[in-house]
């Protein structure tokens, strides 16, 4: 079983709320981490990211100057900084599906809804350390693979060109599928 030696990881916390930063720092120290940097807005976060080169970024969504999404987009600029592949965990009070999708489409690695728990945070960190997803680069997207699961029963259009044996997977009519299973 893989465990994490938190002492070997450098974290950057970006949240405009000092109480939340204190809670996060406390949890990370509790896990065993010693190198935890903080920033209170997106601009300071980007500066701290460039200066400290963290292994993992934990950011809030709503922040002054520029928000967590904009920060993520800036970090995910290939060639613009030292580590565009850095895992970004978005910790936010937003829980709507459209928000989760928007964060994913900006290149966020993991999404964590407040209220925070030690276990949920640990699981997210464990995931990015042990099971990093490959990155996908297209004309309009650069970020962790948005496909977390391969569904063998998927029917529909294969939207990635050249990545499957057949680019169009024929859809079987629902009635035919029912007949087949009878």
């Amino acid at each position: 079983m893989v465990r994490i030696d938190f002492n070997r990881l450098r974290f950057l916390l970006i949240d405009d709320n000092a109480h939340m930063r204190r809670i996060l720092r406390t949890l990370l120290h509790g896990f065993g981490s010693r190198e935890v940097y903080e920033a209170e807005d997106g601009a300071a976060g980007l500066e701290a990211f460039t200066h400290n080169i963290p292994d993992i970024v934990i950011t809030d969504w709503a922040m002054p100057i520029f928000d967590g999404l904009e920060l993520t987009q800036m970090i995910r600029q290939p060639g613009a900084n030292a580590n565009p592949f850095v895992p970004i965990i978005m910790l936010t009070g937003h829980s709507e599906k459209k928000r989760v999708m928007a964060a994913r489409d900006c290149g966020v690695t993991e999404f964590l809804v407040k209220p925070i728990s030690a276990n949920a945070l640990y699981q997210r960190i464990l995931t990015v350390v042990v099971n990093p997803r490959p990155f996908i680069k297209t004309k309009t997207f650069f970020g962790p693979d948005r496909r977390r699961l391969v569904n063998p029963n998927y029917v529909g259009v294969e939207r990635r060109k050249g990545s499957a044996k057949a680019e169009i997977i024929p859809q079987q009519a629902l009635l035919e599928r029912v007949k087949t299973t009878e």
Partner: protein
Amino acid sequence: MSPGRRDGTRKTGKSGGTKVTQFRDHAVIEPQNPLQKAWARQSIEGIGSDPVADAERALAALSGEFAGWMDSECERLDAARKAVRAKGFDAETRQALYHAGHDIKGQAATFGFPRAATAAASLCRLIERTPDARRIPVDLVDQHVDAVRAIVREHGTARADIVAEALSTRLREVTDEFLRAENGGLLPDEDEVLSPPTVPRPGAR
């Protein structure tokens, strides 16, 4: 990059430990995992027996501060409400009120005031789902802010939970009624979901 298949749709190469597979309209990039440096076996010295339990203990040790923090978040919410009362809703006052409510929605449960989070969530919903914030009745804002503050103030007293639940339920009903009226008789989509599952797969790399 190494030569790809004859149809030119796929090329695989490695650069600096990063494997890149180029497809027709996208590339799959698999960087070396720099965080592998932090992989450890359970027996390694310096790693606690249960890091989650250690973190929970650390948070519990901090919990003496939470009531004071909750009070300061309530003061911030009250100040934002007063600004709305004084200036009306504009981009700045709307944002300040929403942000203050949003922080309470996200943090109150951690601070031990989950009922306050529910009332604050109703306020956020009211602001977020009203097409024109200037039409939000200030009295409805007051009712939300006062409810949050009352829930925090009365926390731990007899019947506090029952009163808090009744307050939150009523706020939700009144907010629903207002939102329906502002959105052509329909409630805006409620598509709240939990975070996507991220538990590591067995047999991790």
